[in-house]
């Protein structure tokens, strides 16, 4: 029984990381229809900045957090003004922009390698290293922080999209960009807000995983794949469902690793493929 619950705890903590990446990915997808293949690299930038702040510069986590916020803000601007806007101005299709995001991600990886180094770096966790115990169950403090932060972020994003004018405007842009424009929404401004929000979520995700599995310029792709799988499972049209998708994949992986370890690595891909065949809109499609 303890093993069972312990596996669930492990699954939930990895799942919340996948969910966080899915959340960031779905924010961009649902506001601009851009599939951002550089999402993993956004997370990587957050992780590397955590390394830069906490390990390299020996700042506290608060200063590091501010550095990450600043960097992610800059990153969103670069994404918009170096990649998306120039392509849109030239009348490129959404497909070209999506291909462009792959290139953007590679540039981020290599650029970060040149800036901060190409090795795998360790970052000390935020809340100390002593495992926390609840009866017979235990959890590492960095995993607990990740779970809490992920859920809080989903709530914050949900509140933002449903209860603020900017958030509603952003949703409107996602639903019908021309309709948003004639309603008087500044679509260009909304796009940049969407990118920034997504970058911030990614950056915080990066800050969360740096103490768990280390920071390196190359962590982007593997984490992005899990994030995409989570998003597809949850439903591409539903910003918050990615978190549920992430949790399902995380828990499935956790159990598979224990009971059928040879197949564990295929779990995320398997679920993703199955979903694409059986129900491409995901488990929780946005009602429309």
């Amino acid at each position, binding site marked *: 029984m303890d093993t069972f619950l312990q596996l669930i705890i492990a*699954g939930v903590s990895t799942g919340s990381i996948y969910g966080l990446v899915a959340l960031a990915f779905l924010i961009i997808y649902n506001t601009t229809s851009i599939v951002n293949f550089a999402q993993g690299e956004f997370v990587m930038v957050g992780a590397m900045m955590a390394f830069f702040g906490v390990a390299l510069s020996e700042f506290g986590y608060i200063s590091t957090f*501010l550095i990450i916020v600043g960097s992610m803000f800059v990153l969103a601007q670069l994404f918009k003004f170096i990649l998306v806007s120039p392509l849109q101005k030239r009348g490129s299709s959404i497909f070209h922009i999506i291909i462009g995001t792959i290139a953007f991600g590679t540039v981020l990886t290599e650029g970060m390698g040149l800036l*901060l180094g190409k090795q795998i770096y360790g970052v000390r966790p935020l809340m100390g*290293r002593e495992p926390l115990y609840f009866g017979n169950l235990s959890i590492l403090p960095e995993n607990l922080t990740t779970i809490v932060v992920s859920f809080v972020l989903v709530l914050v994003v949900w509140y933002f999209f449903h209860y603020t004018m900017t958030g509603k405007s952003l949703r409107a842009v996602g639903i019908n960009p021309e309709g948003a424009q004639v309603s008087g929404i500044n679509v260009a401004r909304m796009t940049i807000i969407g990118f920034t929000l997504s970058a911030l979520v990614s950056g915080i995700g990066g800050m969360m995983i740096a103490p768990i599995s280390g920071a390196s310029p190359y962590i982007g792709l593997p984490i992005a794949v899990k994030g995409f799988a989570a998003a597809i499972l949850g439903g591409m049209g539903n910003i918050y469902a990615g978190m549920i998708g992430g949790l399902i994949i995380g828990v499935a992986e956790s159990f598979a*690793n224990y009971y059928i*370890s040879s197949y564990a690595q295929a779990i995320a891909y398997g679920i993703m493929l199955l979903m694409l065949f059986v129900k491409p809109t995901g488990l929780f499609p946005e009602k429309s």
Partner: protein
Amino acid sequence: MRGKLSIYLFMLMGILVLFLSACNGGEAEESGTNSDSETEAGTINIGFVGPLSGGSATMGIPAQNGMELAVEEINDAGGINGKMIELMARDDEADPAKSTTIAQQLSTEEEIVAVLGGPNSGPALANSEVFAKYEIPNMISIAQNDNLLDPEKSSFATTFAMSENNTYDVRAIVEFMKSQGYENIGVIVDDSAYGQGALESIETVLDEEGIGIIEKVEHPVGAQSLSSQALKLKNAEGIDAVYVVTLGNDAALFVKTADQVGLDLPILGGRGLNMSSFIDLAGDATEGVILPTIMDPDKPEAQAYIQAYDAKYGEDNDPAHVFSVLGYDAVKLLAEGLKITEGKGGVELAEALETITDFETVSGGIDHTASYSPDKHVAPNENFIIFNTVKDGEFVKVE
């Protein structure tokens, strides 16, 4: 207006951050590849094919640094018969296909007399065939898969290794296990060529030596959770110790998780644990972990090397110095061969390398020397491996 201002402030801050990091990270790169644009008549070109980017760069970059350091020392002392050595480093991203292409290009387009191989067994195995075809002596620096050097293959004649192979490491650790009285162990390996190759060696050697493997688990490189694996080992009965053959960051996550789920067994590791990320990520959970290493802190040559390396590349670049020193010693061994051939490469150099005996290396224990012979192309003698443990966040020698 205030909204705009805060946006600009944020941007400014971000740019500052990027700029600061540029200043900070810049140093490591300056010492990179020597410019290979000018190949003067008076230089001896040596290639290096290894991962300078990607996950394995944690080994590849220190290896390259160690090589550069050795080249610098040799050149400062007058080079080989007055000719300067020039290192031509190429990044294969630990990709066998890429490594083969680079090998082809280095062999045909650059006048290299010899080449140094990197830390990954897959690429090393793939590119050694190419170098063998062109009769370019190939000194593999770090990779330790058992099948890299096969006397049955034609490539054997020109392929050499600085480091010992997995089986050698496993035998050393089995001796250690026996001394501790362990009878049954659990094993965790990653799913890369490194982990899988090691697993084969472990199964063979442990079987011979009569130590049982009760449970073996695997994980992907760069795992986000190792709870399932730790729990499986915890729930397996009769294990005396856990043998971890994976790289620093994954090993860190494993020892943390082991601690958390209450897997209270001695942990022994492979050489891949010799990374700063291991201690940085896992902190106290690494205390008492036993891992094989090839740097003996009691050895004066090693002390001098550590000082020189850290002064040039910083303490955190390769804290255990395991990867850089193999690059360093590999170059020194090649240079020894080149002295005999007066700078010539090819089969002549391979034959010259085979005559080297009892060459003093920085790596290895106090009594370690390197020797080759026509049928022994692996440099170390029986004193190569020593054991470290982690104490107060530092790697220290086990007496």
